[in-house]
């Protein structure tokens, strides 16, 4: 069982990347996004993609670069506010958007990967989010039924991984990545540092290798910062 591939393009081709696929992409804003996979999807030119990701990047970075090439047909996200091309395509009716509360999105992906087809949450009851969905009373409180979510492919970014596919994330770059790793029929993980099996402390693994089909050491990470905020020098 060899999970290691040299490049994101090789992983995507092995995973059967094709038009019309549903793809989960990890990250929160531009933090913890699979930069190499996104760039390779752009280069491979597949179209009509449904992308499940908390956000949609910015105009010229992250998932935004797949909007520029019109490769995305539908976005499933909780917040898409940082992107002018997104706004243009959405208002022109070229792009479908399904807005999902962030916690519901995270739990739908977690549930999908864990074999749970649906669950009840209080989030969104009495709002447009609950329209057309089953509402149920548990112990005197109302909940809306939400469905587990799976994808044809998940593209995930971790900090370190080993040849067996075990992965460790770093700081807030973890976000949606671990759940997405479990919810794709095929899962590709790109890491900043790939090490031989046995080099990672088994007690520190966030994503066990069972969820990972392909792993690669990415290159040329830009890791762009969206909002650079500082405290003045000399302050506490």
């Amino acid at each position, binding site marked *: 069982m060899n999970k290691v591939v040299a490049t994101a393009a090789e992983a995507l081709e092995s995973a059967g990347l094709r038009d019309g696929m549903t793809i989960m992409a990890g990250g929160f804003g531009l*933090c913890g996004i699979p930069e190499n996979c996104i760039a390779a999807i752009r280069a491979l030119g597949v179209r009509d993609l449904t992308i499940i990701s908390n956000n949609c990047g910015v105009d010229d970075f992250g998932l935004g670069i797949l909007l520029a090439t019109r490769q995305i047909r539908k976005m499933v996200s909780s917040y898409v506010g940082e992107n002018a091309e997104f706004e243009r395509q959405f208002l022109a009716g070229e792009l479908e958007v399904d807005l999902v509360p962030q916690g519901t999105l995270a739990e739908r992906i977690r549930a999908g990967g864990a074999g749970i087809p649906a669950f009840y949450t209080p989030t*969104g009851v009495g709002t447009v989010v609950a329209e057309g969905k089953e509402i149920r009373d548990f112990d005197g409180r109302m909940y809306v039924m939400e469905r587990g979510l799976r994808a044809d492919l998940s593209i995930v970014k971790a900090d370190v991984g080993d040849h067996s596919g075990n992965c460790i994330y770093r700081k*807030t770059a973890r976000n949606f990545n671990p759940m997405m790793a479990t919810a794709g029929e095929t899962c590709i993980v790109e890491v900043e540092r790939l090490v031989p099996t046995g080099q990672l402390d088994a007690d520190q693994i966030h994503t066990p290798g069972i969820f990972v089909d392909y792993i690669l050491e990415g290159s040329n990470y830009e890791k762009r910062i969206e909002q650079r905020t500082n405290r003045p020098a000399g302050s506490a």
Partner: protein
Amino acid sequence: MKSVSSRERIVLRAARELQDGFYVNLGIGMPTQVANHIPAGMNIVLESENGMLGIGPFPYEGEEDADLINAGKQTITELPGSSYFSSADSFGMIRGGHIDLTIMGAMEISQEGDLANWMIPGKLVKGMGGGMDLVVSARRVVMIMTHCDKKGNPKLLPQCTLPLTGKRCVHRVITEHAVFDFEDGKMILKERWPETSAEELRKITAAEYTEADSVVEMVI
């Protein structure tokens, strides 16, 4: 009385909602400023819904870490005792009722405690982010907003005109003029800014409310 702007007054009053040992989630914008007014000696742990407990101050120039941001996508730092977790765990702790307090901005609040703060029909919808989860699940949901909009229209209304973020989810709202609580779908005036008369407050508040047995002076 300190001379501060309306917004500073709201932020300072909101900081008085903090209690020692609280785990707190602050919304983006004005609520984030509450973090600058945590009383000395009070232990508050700030949660960031993208997966962190124990938000530290902004980094010094040159020390920014692209892997360490808050929910507003700003660079931050960690503190002794900070922890990181996934978005699923983050919203698990939110929905599970483990967050003591959330302070968030609002566009409209109804007299029953309904909240609207995520979309304006006709304008581009950017998404609700984590707001809808937080307002139905934090143990205490405190909204802060200017009492009226930029045109002077009341934002405390009989019913919200904008699409809702949550129904009957607000426990308390703080404006520059007053503090109201919502109990069993009723709005109750608790505190009034000393320079705002009772009549004046009625005039700028479209929502129906009763006065608590002892309305006290709003203190910052």
